[in-house]
């Protein structure tokens, strides 16, 4: 094997998603042309809208933060061979926990509230994932089905609570009262301002740091502990895991609970960091986007971070695009996002063969 081929091989995990992204953008360009706009201008607007100035970057990273949490959630379960479709519901329940805490903790010092919120968000999310996990581990009920059902149950529970129980008295919209300011998760521009660094205001808040720490911890857990080893062994081969003395039921319960806890952390960003009250559907579909993020990020925290930024940019840049190019409605932007998911997620390996042929390598192998 020549060194050049070896080098090219190692680049495949980077080149493949990049090529997929280019393909997705090319397909999107066709859509843009079809509605009578100039694709080059649209792309420029999208990129400037997402990364053009500090504010744009702040918004992009704010969206990306939620996607990192849900992407990590999906990835952890996926390494154990479990497809957790329920990050959306787990995130909602995390929001409920955080909201209850913040409503009750009006007089607490902010650092204590933050620490408690991380625990509560995780515990609520984990609890919501634990039931499907238990059903899978003990009863063999497929976790894909049960987590989807739990998303609906979560939506119904949240609607009931917000309409009948937690609603702020004397108003129509189903949301809680605003939390005391001492329980808000500080936004980054405030923190920076206090440190004397000028930063344009954006919703980006301290939860982005939690997301980074979560990514590092997931990486250590999955690839550097015996529990992560057991998780991956189960994900690749249940029979080999049993042979190795790994108890699948136990691993399923732990992995799904961790997954739910990560999804629950979305509420730090949305509920505690930005809205400062509990709203219906505050997750905004982040749970589902997390599936695409994990797929595209190849279930690796670093890949998930990059994919989350990409999706954050599509959300943020897409909103700007819809504003500046009236022909491209909000729905068109969703179409473009859909194309990215389709090409980068569902058709992830469509370009693999041509790419392999190009750098001249034999049988397909996965990076470890």
């Amino acid at each position, binding site marked *: 094997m020549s060194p050049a081929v070896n080098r090219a091989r190692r680049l495949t995990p980077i080149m493949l998603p990049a090529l997929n992204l280019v393909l997705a953008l090319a397909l999107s360009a066709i859509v843009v042309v079809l509605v009578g706009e100039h694709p080059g201008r649209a792309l420029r607007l999208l990129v400037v809208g997402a990364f053009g100035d500090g504010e744009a970057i702040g918004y992009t990273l704010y969206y990306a933060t939620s996607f990192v949490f849900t992407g990590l959630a999906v990835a952890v379960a996926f390494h154990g061979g479990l497809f957790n479709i329920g990050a959306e519901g787990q995130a909602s329940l995390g929001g409920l926990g955080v909201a209850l805490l913040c409503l009750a903790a009006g007089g607490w010092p902010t650092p204590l509230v933050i620490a408690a919120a991380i625990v509560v968000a995780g515990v609520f999310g984990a609890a919501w994932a634990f039931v499907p996990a238990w059903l899978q581990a003990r009863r063999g009920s497929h976790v894909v089905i049960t987590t989807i059902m739990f998303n609906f149950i979560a939506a119904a529970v949240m609607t009931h609570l917000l309409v009948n129980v937690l609603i702020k008295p004397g108003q129509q919209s189903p949301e809680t009262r605003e939390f005391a300011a001492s329980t808000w998760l500080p936004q980054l521009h405030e923190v920076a301002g206090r440190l004397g660094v000028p930063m344009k205001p954006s919703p980006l808040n301290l939860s982005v740091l939690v997301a980074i720490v979560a990514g590092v911890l997931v990486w250590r857990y999955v690839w550097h502990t015996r529990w992560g080893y057991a998780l991956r062994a189960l994900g*690749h081969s249940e029979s080999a895991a049993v042979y190795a003395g790994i108890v699948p039921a136990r691993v399923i319960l732990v992995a799904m609970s961790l997954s739910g806890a990560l999804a629950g952390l979305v509420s730090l960003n949305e509920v505690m960091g930005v809205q400062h009250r509990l709203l219906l559907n505050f997750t905004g579909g982040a749970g589902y986007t997390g599936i695409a993020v994990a797929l595209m990020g190849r279930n690796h925290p670093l890949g998930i971070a990059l994919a989350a930024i990409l999706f954050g940019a599509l959300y943020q840049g897409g909103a700007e695009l819809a504003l500046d190019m009236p022909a491209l409605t909000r729905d068109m932007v969703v179409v473009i996002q859909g194309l990215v998911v389709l090409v980068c997620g569902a058709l992830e390996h469509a370009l693999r063969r041509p790419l392999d042929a190009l750098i001249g390598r034999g049988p397909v*192998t996965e990076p470890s």
Partner: protein
Amino acid sequence: MAVELRGIEKWFGEVHANRDVSLRVEAGSVHGLVGENGAGKSTLMGVLYGYYRPDRGVILVRGQPVTFRSSQDALAAGIGMVHQHFMLVEPFTVLENVVLGVEGGFRLGAGLARARAQLLRLGREYHLEVDPDARIADLGVGQRQRVEILKSLHRGADLLILDEPTAVLTPQEADHLFRILAALRAQGKTVLLITHKLREIFEATDTVTVMRAGRVVATQPTADTTPERLAELMVGRAVALRVETSPARPAAPVLEVSDLVVTDGLGVQRVKGVSFTVRSGEIVGVAGVAGNGQSELLEALAGIRPATSGRVQWKGRELAATALPSPHAWRRLGLAHVPEDRHRLGLVLPFAGRESAILGYQDDGAYNGALELSWTAVAAGWRRQAAEYDIRPADGRQRTSAFSGGNQQKIVLARELDRHPDLLLIGQPTRGVDIGAIEFIHRRLVARRDGGAAILLVSVELDEILALADRILVMHDGRIVGDVPRASATERALGLMMAGVAAPASAATVGPG
């Protein structure tokens, strides 16, 4: 000349699978093709049967150059293939399977009638008698193989390629197969026999071709060569076909099994009350045709599959067979298990080699810090085991699936023997393993026996049982039907017991019921 291949070159990406291969197969002969895994036999046969297009080279059938775009083209040219894994529709009858794809016109009835007549004629001519109306599901392996051969002949094959045909047969069934091959030859058909069992080359073939590393290294009349010479050509160095062993010195019992019953998930009894003892310092072999309960016995003892009833004594300590230790607890007690199916159980194929090398020992203190696995320790363990067991390549970062069969087996063996177990359960230790590695693995097992380990060896290779076991248990239909010391064991007697024909001559321990 039935078939000639000239200068065949085949690349798969970076892998040069066939290098300037030329092969002449005489019409009306049985031609053997031997070589280690990865020597290029399967690729070559794939080229001949239209699965692969060669990158260079010519195929001549009866002197005419041909180009095969698919196996249909090869069939049309009179080349048939009998795969190692049968391609039969189980709920269909023999006749329906034979006509499948060549029904001959719109009306099925006429084609079936013609096929039935031909089937009976072929059966008479070639010792291939099979009831045309029997369902495949009801037939044994040997009979299914005959159906595969009939399928090819019915399609007009003049040249039959048989890929490892005896892997699933009893010795008696294999003998019958060789009679069929002789009859085929007598009628002018040509047979290309791929095998890794040298004995079969000498029993069945006229000419033998040896391949190594993608090249043909020799073609000669079988009568002019010897097994030792062929083995040397295959491996590229001298090989001992049979490991010399000293007599065993059995000591205290390590594992005593009484009346063990194992029922599978469908409620079928697979092990029907077996009793035996394995002592320190001996190798007890379990012989039998695949599917007679050996696998279930091994998995139940290893704690992977629940047993239904029975008693097990571990070093004199009574254990309930229904609550045997978990695989995890067994390892701590000193039991190691090299499973029959390394791909399904013994390895995690997408893992790096060194990750697979700690499978089952991932909680071991030697590999773990307070919180995290120490990849440094894992890598050091891998280097030590790779050196001791000659695992190639020694790069532990390579994916497990990318190692050859023999090296994969060495990974499992090195891992399981590393902690000097008191009892080793080992199934099919050399399945899919090259001849050179077989010698190595056999030597290791005998060395462990001499070091005082108790070994329970399950193998469908009678040669292997005869080479290694000090005592041989024969399993048939879930029962132990024979317990024979190696000294008094003959292949013929064991074969009959495996087939469930003969009453055991010296059955010391026979399961009840």
